[in-house]
């Protein structure tokens, strides 16, 4: 076998132009895919980061059935103080949980003393909220970002600020109905204006938890939602399983689960876009496979055609069909290895260069976003194995043809 490898390598070296052409095609394919995967992965990671780190967190816990009724912001499905304590115990004992934030979600009437409109609100503990969704402060378009909120202050969504002509420092009134049906009103000072983002809660305002409890006249420490930030988002599926199992032990009197837990993927519509990015990546990979397959097959068919006389000669002097097959397959394998090695090297250098030069771009209102392409070892290995495998597959038909050639016919070929 070593002799076959040596001979194949020598043939590739001697048929240099053909070798360079084919490996260049393979290299181009590998570079295109690796760069696309790394850049699209960077966009995806950035978008996912925006959603999880500025709004949703990685996981969310609600009372059973809350999520399906979320549009109504049902107060009667809030978690009770006892239930919240149990969840806190579970979360505090899990080392993968970096932080969590308790939220009361409710609807209210928003008045600037001249006009009134509806507003959806999240009541949060500012310190815990910033630990759990640290990019929330970056969504504040106008106003003080430090500390997020003080008692009596409100962050309002940009659309309401514009529509109601409300500015920073203005006094506004929130009027809300509590779960007993009584109505209460409370004045707030506008602390900041929030950029809206797509997805549930993306156009909500923010107030402090204590203010919300006062407005809603809550006697108990009720909570609508617990957003969770994980130390390592890659462990999300595993932690989800652990928490789901731990929370599943709590049943109501009808023996039904008390809690429900969801990953951000279940909650945000962006997950579908992320899946589309994955699908596009998959199709790009298929295109790469096609490029490599066609180029290798083309070159190997030409190689066999140009070398018919040579094949006849080596067959006549005793090279068996198996060795001829192995020789051409090895040439395909080495072409694949060469093209892939160069392609991977160029791609890694290009990715490092992009990271070193800190290319920035604007996306919507977000300016100066850094392009930070990364590629995992798993992706590099998978793509390399696919390309090399396809290179061998592309050589199979021409190699088979060469090995089955009649030596007499081949020797007559001019």
């Amino acid at each position, binding site marked *: 076998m070593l*002799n*076959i490898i*040596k*001979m194949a390598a*020598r*043939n590739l070296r*001697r*048929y240099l132009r053909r070798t360079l052409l084919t490996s260049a095609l393979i290299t181009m394919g590998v570079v295109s895919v690796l760069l696309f995967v790394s850049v699209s992965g960077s966009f995806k990671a950035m978008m996912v980061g925006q959603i999880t780190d500025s709004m949703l967190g990685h996981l969310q816990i609600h009372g059973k059935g809350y999520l399906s009724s979320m549009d109504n912001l049902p107060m009667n499905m809030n978690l009770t103080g006892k239930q919240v304590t149990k969840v806190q115990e579970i979360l505090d004992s899990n080392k993968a949980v970096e932080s969590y934030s308790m939220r009361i979600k409710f609807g209210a009437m928003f008045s600037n003393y001249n006009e009134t409109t509806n507003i959806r609100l999240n009541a949060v503990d500012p310190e815990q909220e910033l630990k759990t969704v640290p990019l929330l402060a970056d969504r504040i378009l106008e106003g003080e970002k430090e500390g997020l909120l003080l008692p009596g202050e409100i962050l309002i969504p940009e659309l309401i600020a514009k529509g109601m002509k409300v500015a920073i420092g203005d006094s506004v009134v929130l009027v809300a109905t509590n779960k007993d049906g009584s109505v209460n009103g409370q004045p707030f000072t506008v602390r900041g204006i929030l950029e809206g983002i797509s997805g549930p809660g993306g156009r909500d305002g923010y107030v402090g938890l204590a203010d919300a409890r006062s407005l809603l006249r809550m006697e108990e420490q009720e909570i609508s939602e617990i957003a969770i930030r994980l130390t390592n988002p890659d462990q999300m599926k595993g932690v989800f399983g652990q928490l789901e199992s731990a929370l599943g032990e709590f049943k109501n009197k009808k023996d039904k689960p008390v809690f429900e837990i969801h990953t951000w993927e279940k909650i945000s519509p962006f997950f579908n876009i992320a899946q589309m990015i994955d699908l596009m990546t998959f199709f790009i990979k298929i295109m790469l496979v096609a490029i490599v397959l066609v180029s290798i097959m083309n070159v190997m068919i030409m190689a066999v055609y140009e070398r018919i*006389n*040579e094949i*006849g*000669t*080596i*067959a*006549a*002097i*005793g*090279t*068996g*069909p*198996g*060795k001829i097959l192995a020789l051409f397959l090895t040439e395909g394998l080495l072409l694949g290895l060469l093209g892939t090695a160069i392609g991977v090297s160029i791609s890694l250098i290009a990715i490092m260069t992009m990271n070193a030069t800190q290319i920035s771009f604007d996306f919507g209102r977000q300016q100066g976003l850094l392009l930070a392409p990364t590629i995992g070892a798993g992706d590099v290995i998978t793509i390399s194995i696919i390309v090399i495998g396809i290179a061998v597959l592309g050589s199979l038909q021409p190699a088979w043809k060469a090995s089955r050639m009649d*030596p*007499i016919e081949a*020797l007559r070929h001019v």
Partner: protein
Amino acid sequence: MPLVAARNLTKTYISGDIEVKAIRGVDFTIEPASFVSFVGPSGSGKSTLLNMIGCLDPPSSGSLEVVGQDVTSLSARDSARFRGDHIGFIFQDFNLIPVLTVFENIEYPLQMVQNWPVEQRQHRVQELLAAVGMEGQGNKRPSQISGGQKQRVAVARALASKAKLILADEPTANLDRVTAFKIIDLMKKMRDEFGTSFVFSTHDPKVVENAEIIYTLEDGKILQ
């Protein structure tokens, strides 16, 4: 024991409804260390006969023993192995592999067919380069040497694996008179030195007058 023994050997090609009898029941033997020539006009069956002796084409009927083995029904793989072990080939167009050097062309059957160790291969190739008068030319490509030199390299390649039988199909057809005589002298010298039998198909008088045994073919039959 003869090196090659053929009895009532036939070869018929069928192309559609047409049946072409290329060899029509020939008998002959070839002894070790002999210099044999099959002569005759084009289409007389010389190349077909050489192809059958060389296990490149199976006979249609009759018996054919080469180096003591019945070769009438070998598979493609066994034929290749048999050729690699026992038979060397010299072609009219030299058929050197263009991308390999002179040295590598001679080394090829030792490396790819018989799997000789590197040192033994190199020693054998150097020995053959000297034997065919091509010392110092090992690094040249076939395109850098003359026709006569190419045929010398082809002789060396045929001898490389120590085959007892070398088949040469019109070996001097593409050579000038002086070079052709030099190649014939070389082959005779190799026969004397290594005890190898050379079997030619030719209609070149230069080869014929140097052959020790001559079989004349006409319409697929041996005349004498």
